[in-house]
């Protein structure tokens, strides 16, 4: 039987079986396949789809419109442009996460420019660009602003390199902009003139976040912008905006679902107090609230009217004490996510436990991480209190100065559904403060009990036993962060051998050496990246790895004054693009 001539011209001959007829399941028209595949958004699913056969690979690549690249150096712009012809939205990540903690040299790389040059040629219909930990120069922003007439959304998370001029290019030229979201910016003093450059008739903005930019903007321009943009649903201003200015903005935008306030400390007249209180009262759609710099017990109550629908309350810029938090949380019964500073102490966390039964995520940041004498903050008691009241907890980031094994064991029994468990006991190598034992049993309990665990950060005094537990039990673990832990190479080996889904491993100040590094030879190609700093690696070990695994980039960052033998900072990642060309002199690619 001859294959139906109306069927796909892409039908490869190897799908025909021995008598010349094709397998019924392969008579799937190209057009239908593409239609079906265009409904698949998840890039992980799409990557799986592309592996089925040549047909599916082609259909997938023609229908992919969202591009996600977790490590900008794992592939080159040229390769991407060749494979995917129809990209409309790009998500790109650059530097390794430890760059957040100043562990990378300034000019390490992850500059977006070469990507933009390629996008300008290959994707003139580009609409969205979302970058994380990348360097974006003003020149790049100008290229972006002028190359894509349909450009709608720019999101920069933990990016640097740009100034007011770059942002001005965006606001001046991107007439269809719906989203400008700049968060966790590490660029200092960008300048505030960009906000005034939106054209007079510009009104398409839906998302505006400039909370992490320091400079003052023109309030007049901001107020006009907000009143013009009737579809604005996310507005996060910076600290320069005062309470009474905020009130005027809220009056123009009652439909906001996410609000980041400015400074919450200002001498208001009773009338102004009433006005802002009623403005919040009218903001019935608020789900996310942040900002609140310098909020005090006197002004927090103006918020209460807007709190009943809140699902995410970000108080990580508000230095509050326990009583203030407790009163506020009493008005927030629907909270799913809460970020606070540890000045709320254990007492404040008790209030979390009793007021927020739906809580899924808690992050507690230290007000003063470097003050080792600081006896306050939160302890195991606060974490326990939250775990008792918030059984749905699945994401925690907890900075504390003391912890016990018993507490952690109880916590994970209360909340076995953790997917992200990031515990930071701030003094390195600190034991269980009650028993003086290692914290091995704590993290063993986490690994054993939390079967859905995907991300884990460990701390405290830990031996190889912790890593034996992790390797044995944490079968869904994807990201592991280790500092000042372990006793020998065996620790790292247990993890590399045991965790089948491991994608990112970051290690600092651990006694892991070349043997440990090399034990993961086969594994690294299945991972996104490995970071090891201040461990016991030598250049020899790194060179060996590089030689054995040509599809890995092995980069060593030399610190000043280090000798020729030690490899201080090592970054290993898989790449189909070969060694990168833009590494600064201090980064050696082996």
């Amino acid at each position, binding site marked *: 039987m001859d294959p139906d001539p109306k069927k796909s011209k892409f039908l490869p001959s190897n799908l025909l079986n021995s008598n010349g007829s094709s397998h019924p399941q392969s008579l799937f028209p190209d057009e239908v396949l593409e239609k079906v595949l265009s409904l698949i958004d998840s890039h992980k699913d799409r990557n799986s789809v592309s592996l089925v056969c040549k047909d599916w690979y082609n259909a997938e690549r023609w229908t992919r419109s969202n591009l996600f690249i977790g490590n900008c150096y794992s592939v080159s712009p040229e390769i991407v442009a060749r494979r995917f012809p129809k990209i409309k939205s790009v998500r790109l990540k650059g530097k390794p996460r*430890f760059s*957040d*903690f*100043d*562990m990378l040299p300034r000019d390490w790389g992850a500059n977006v420019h070469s990507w933009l040059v390629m996008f300008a040629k290959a994707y003139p219909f580009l609409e969205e660009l979302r970058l994380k930990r990348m360097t974006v120069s003003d020149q790049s922003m100008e290229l972006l602003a002028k190359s894509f007439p349909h450009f709608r959304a720019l999101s920069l998370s*933990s990016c640097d390199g740009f100034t007011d001029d770059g942002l001005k290019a965006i606001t001046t030229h991107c007439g269809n902009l719906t989203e400008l979201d700049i968060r*966790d*910016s*590490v660029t*200092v*003093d960008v300048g505030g003139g960009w906000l005034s450059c939106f054209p007079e008739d510009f009104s398409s903005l839906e998302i505006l976040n400039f909370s*992490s930019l*320091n400079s003052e903007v023109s309030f007049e321009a901001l107020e006009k912008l907000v009143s013009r943009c009737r579809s604005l649903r996310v507005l996060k201003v910076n600290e320069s905006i005062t309470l009474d200015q905020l009130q005027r903005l809220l009056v123009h935008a009652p439909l906001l679902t996410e609000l980041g306030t400015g400074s919450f*400390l200002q001498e208001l007249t009773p009338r102004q107090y009433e006005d802002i209180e009623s403005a919040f009262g009218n903001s019935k759609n608020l789900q996310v609230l942040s900002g609140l710099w310098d909020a*005090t*017990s*006197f002004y927090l109550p103006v918020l209460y009217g807007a709190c009943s629908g809140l699902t995410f309350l970000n108080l*990580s*810029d508000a*230095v509050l*004490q326990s009583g203030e938090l407790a009163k506020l949380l009493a008005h927030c019964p629907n909270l799913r996510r809460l970020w606070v500073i540890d*000045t709320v*102490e254990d007492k404040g966390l008790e209030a979390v436990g009793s007021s927020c039964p739906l809580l899924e995520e808690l992050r507690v*940041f*230290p*007000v*003063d*991480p*470097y*003050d*080792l004498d600081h006896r*306050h903050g939160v302890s195991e008691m606060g974490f326990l209190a939250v775990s008792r009241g918030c059984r749905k907890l699945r994401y925690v980031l907890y*900075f504390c100065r003391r912890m016990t094994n018993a507490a952690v064991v109880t916590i994970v029994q209360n909340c076995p559904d953790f997917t992200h468990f990031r515990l*930071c006991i*701030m003094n*390195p190598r600190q034991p269980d403060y009650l028993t003086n034992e290692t914290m091995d049993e704590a993290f063993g309990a986490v690994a054993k009990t939390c079967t859905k665990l995907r991300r884990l950060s460990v701390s405290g005094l830990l031996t190889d036993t912790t890593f034996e537990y992790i390797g044995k039990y944490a079968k869904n673990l994807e990201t592991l*962060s280790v*500092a000042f832990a372990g006793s020998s190479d065996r620790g790292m080996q247990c993890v590399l051998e045991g965790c089948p889904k491991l994608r990112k491993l970051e290690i*600092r*100040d651990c006694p892991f050496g070349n043997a440990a590094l090399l034990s993961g030879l086969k594994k690294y190609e299945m991972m996104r990246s490995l970071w090891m700093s201040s461990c016991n690696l030598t250049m020899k070990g790194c060179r060996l790895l590089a030689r054995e695994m040509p599809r890995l980039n092995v980069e060593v960052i030399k610190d000043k004054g280090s000798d020729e033998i030690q490899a201080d900072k090592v970054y290993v990642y898989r790449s189909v693009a070969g060694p990168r060309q833009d590494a600064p002199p201090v980064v050696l690619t082996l």
Partner: protein
Amino acid sequence: MDKSSTGLGLETELRLGLPGVGEVEKNDKKRAFCDISGGAAAAGAGNNKNQVVGWPPVCAYRRKNSFNGVKMYVKVSMDGAPFLRKIDLSSHKGYSDLLMALEQLFGCYGIDAKNDEKGWNAEEALEDADKCEYVPIYEDKDTDWMLLGDVPWEMFVESCKRLRIMKRSDAKGAKDLLKALAAKEDYSSSLSN
């Protein structure tokens, strides 16, 4: 005693301690203060511990908003309050403005007894010290603890590293402090004759 001239950093006869013996002078002041406050001031001083790079892992953006940065944030601790606040000195116009902000931050009153049109005056405040439940002091660049108002505002903003609102009872009376400081001065000026 004319306190206003000491802040200008010029050589005057009214310094505490022997002329040209800066170190001794500082230690004298410190000791006097420590005697009064029971050593608490000294404990609060040194902040150059051995810091490990990038640890604890608090990301750059969050540290920027903490106690360092472009603005002139200083920590303020208050006796009896279990937490620290921060205050941006550059956003205040003078001592009275600062004191109002401090009162608002800690929700208490009595830090400053004198807040009239003439502005805050160190001497007058100390004279009314009995009405004042707290005494504001600050740690300067030389790690000395000074009374608020000793020096001109601009100089204070530049040299202040942290603030502390001390209970008057801990100071055993600011007047006593003043007397102790004055006594040292009398002693040292008598030595120079």
